[in-house]
């Protein structure tokens, strides 16, 4: 399938070459058809509007992961506890998209609050893999990757990653997903999973699309105190840069316990890059064995405080006011939260309790700094790190049901490291195994999205 970058479509809209009314109604029909078959959406916006016909995203269809607030449009974060929640404000990224003429078409399925790797923890239906309906799209931005893969209209998906929730579904659905440096994109309006780990990013059909999307949504926002006050970047200008002499690090730990055929595809990809002039060398990231417990302890600790606000008082699910406060909110939370949410709240609360705090939460914070310094050491000598995105092929739903929670958590082994470090990363499709997509993960140092993008773009070109 020939992929046309969405920017071409935007240009046509700016030049007035497309009849908008017809265009939107056609797309809505198409979306509803996809929704019937694959269920990528939680909410579809019937009356879409284009606010700027001259913008950089003019007329481009944009789906938004349902943990990102959209004013006037139901936002659930995939959970029953927000089943009728309509935010009174737009997230900054949504404002930016609208300002540039992007058309918000719907909110995509996700694991509740981001808790999951397969989007099976979504209270509004599970999105199905475009390549095999019995398999998972990945998670937690499963719906976003699903629609990105299936849309045959110009579309990008705004998604979010805490431990790999952009890279994983991008890999499983055979599309491109970029997770920027932590702080590059404002989190104002993002329903928090873990504040020190959440990043909003873009999923699309090709590298140029995600570069365009990221250029629009990125930038300093004074409403978010963790937003980096750095000049905005137009990431499109780095795409065509030469990758000769680009130094690629191959971390040996990231090739252990990975399906052989997946490794083969990724190595094919690395060799192709070598053919374009890049050089590679094996390195070691010795703290890799600690990334899963470090990630999960920090993430669930923060999450357990972030989810405390859902108690049926000011918004979201509420029940008849009976009993005292404790009885009331316990009932609301028991009914509103899914199993995985409850599991993580309990784990997170435990890890923060006096007596355990030192051993778990504070310890994990210390180990995190060591993990980050491992990456920094590598980036002193290398431009990018490349590895497989996921250790397995998209699993079947019935296989997932048999997995123990800890086995599910281990699936994130290749993505939580860079997510903990807050470095930028991009997953690009690099082939198929048994008809299922495989993703190659390209990571770079903080604020070096341009390196990820130019390598990814070069790979995309040479792959053809």
């Amino acid at each position, binding site marked *: 399938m020939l992929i046309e970058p969405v920017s071409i479509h935007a240009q046509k809209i700016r030049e007035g070459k497309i009849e908008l009314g017809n265009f939107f109604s056609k797309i809505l029909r198409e979306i509803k058809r996809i929704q019937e078959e694959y269920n990528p959406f939680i909410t579809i916006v019937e009356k879409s509007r284009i606010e700027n016909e001259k913008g950089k995203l003019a007329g481009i269809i944009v789906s938004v992961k349902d943990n*990102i*607030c959209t004013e006037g449009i139901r*936002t659930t*974060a995939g959970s029953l506890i*927000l089943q009728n*929640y309509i*935010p*009174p*404000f737009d*997230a900054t990224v949504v404002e930016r998209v609208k300002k540039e003429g992007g058309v918000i078409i719907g909110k995509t399925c996700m694991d509740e609050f981001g808790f999951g790797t397969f989007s099976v923890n979504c209270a509004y239906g599970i999105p199905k893999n475009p390549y095999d309906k019995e398999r998972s799209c990945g998670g937690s931005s499963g719906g976003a990757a699903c629609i990105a893969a299936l849309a045959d209209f110009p579309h990008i998906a705004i998604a979010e990653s805490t431990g790999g929730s952009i890279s994983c579904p991008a890999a499983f659905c055979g599309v491109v997903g970029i997770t920027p440096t932590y702080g590059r994109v404002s*989190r*104002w*309006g*993002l*329903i*928090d999973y*873990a*504040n*020190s780990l959440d990043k909003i990013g873009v999923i699309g059909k090709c590298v140029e699309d995600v570069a365009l999307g990221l250029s629009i949504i990125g930038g300093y926002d*004074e*409403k*978010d*105190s*963790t937003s980096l006050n750095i000049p905005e970047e137009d990431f499109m200008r780095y795409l065509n840069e030469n990758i000769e002499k680009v130094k690629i690090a191959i971390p040996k730990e990231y090739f252990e316990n990975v399906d052989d055929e997946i490794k083969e595809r990724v190595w094919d990809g690395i060799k192709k890059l070598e053919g374009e002039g890049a050089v590679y060398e094996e390195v070691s990231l010795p703290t890799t064995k600690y990334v899963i417990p470090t990630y999960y302890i920090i993430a669930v*600790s*923060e999450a*357990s*405080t972030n989810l*405390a*606000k*859902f*108690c049926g*008082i*000011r*918004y979201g699910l509420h029940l008849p006011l009976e009993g005292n*406060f*404790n009885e009331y*909110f316990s009932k609301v939370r028991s009914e509103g939260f899914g199993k995985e949410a409850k599991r993580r709240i309990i784990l997170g*609360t435990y890890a*923060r*309790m*006096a007596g355990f*705090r030192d051993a778990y*939460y504070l310890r994990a*914070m210390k180990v995190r700094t060591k993990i980050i310094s491992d990456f920094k050491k590598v980036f002193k000598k290398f431009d990018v790190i490349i590895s497989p995105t996921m250790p397995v092929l998209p699993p079947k739903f019935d296989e997932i049901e048999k997995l123990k929670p800890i086995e599910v958590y281990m699936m994130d082994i290749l993505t939580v490291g860079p997510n903990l470090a807050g470095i930028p990363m991009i997953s690009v499709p690099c082939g198929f195994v048994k008809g299922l997509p495989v993703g190659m993960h390209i990571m770079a140092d903080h604020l070096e999205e341009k390196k990820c993008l130019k390598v990814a773009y070069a790979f995309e070109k040479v792959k053809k």
Partner: protein
Amino acid sequence: MKVKIGLEIHVQLLTKSKLFCSCSTNYENKEPNENTCPICLGFPGSKPKVNKKALDFGIMVALALNCKIAEKTFFSRKSYFYPDMSKNYQITQYEIPLAKNGFLEIGKKKIRIRRVHLEEDPAKLIHVGKDITSAQHVLIDYNRSGIPLVEIVTEPDFENPREVREFLEKLSSILEHLEVYDSSKEGSMRIDVNISLEGGERVEIKNISGFKRIEKALMYEIVRQENLRRLGLKVKRETRHFDERSGLTFSLRKKEVEEDYGYIFDTDLPVVEISKGWVNSLAKSMPELPHKRVERFVEEFNLPKERAKVLVYTDKQLADFFEKCAEVYKNYERLSKWIVTDLLKCLNWHGIRINQSKVKVESFAELLKLIDEGEITERLAKEIIKEYVNTGKSPSKIIEEKGLRLIRDEKEIEKVIKIVLAENRKAVKDYRKGERKALNFLIGKVLQKTNKRIDPKVIRKIIKKALNEDCTKKPR
């Protein structure tokens, strides 16, 4: 029995906006929940943003309390479920507070300050019904949610309730002089007290507003604990509530273990670096602290130290009023005396502070000038002040309306005295017999008759003369 008392004081800071959002801190005339936004309501997706002015104020308070300021500080989440918490966690400071290890002296005693930090105020709970124990339901008003608080924690260095009150009065004066706090705002200072008898368990009394209540609450609690001891019973470690009407403390909940707040860093907020430059510039521009002001009053206005202390520490507004009057009226001794005695008495009687009254600099100075010029007596002035504070009418207007000007014409005075002597023959006879008291009686009668419009000293002079003259006129 030896008593140990420690305080946790929460003070609302007078910044323009709340601690983490741009909502106003002035919500006096607003409907409930009108002064809110997604941040202080804890809406999903909202993020806090630190109000720098609050940090400035916090640092100033720490400096005034002789604390060591942290070089780096950050915020933590104190997690617990309660209806007044919009996020079910409070953003506060735990591991590294803004400042620590300070002190404040009361008399010769040093009270150690353990820590000073910033945190957000929760919402206000309104118990519908009588009070916290009998209310059928609770209403929540988030106007207050997110107001910046500075929390000051002392070591348990207090040994009696009087020391506590002295400390709080001094602290209140310092905070008002720093212009970070307004004591007339309801609920602007709330205090939790920890109190134990020697060797006994610690009892916490929560959320007391106001100094008078603190002394009362502590006195009751000490007696309660002493009684338990005498009966051979143990004092339970618990949290109690003070009921102002009954003057009793009663149990709220058992404090068996420290409540587990599961503190984590608030990773929505970056670490705050407090440079020496920042601290120094605040120190340089800090308003005059009360102890310095007292020194200056002694120097500049030649006031006795004790009076300067009363003027400064009783109420900053009073000291401000003094200084403003001092610009137009130069008899500082008389000015300060009148302010701390009669004026203050009137204000206290009405239960208001001077800025809430109708007293103005010009008219007050005018009143004192009238005394200087002999137009009215001091006694009369005392009466006039009462009406002045009551109605706000200028003293000269009151004097006009009530015809209170002193009678100074000697001839007129003689006339009145003659009438009084004629009406009070018995007293005259008594005076002649040698009873000194009779003289005072007669003077009193003259005052009565003239509505106190004659200077008693003048009466005494003239009436003596008249009595002597009268003496010489023997009845035929």
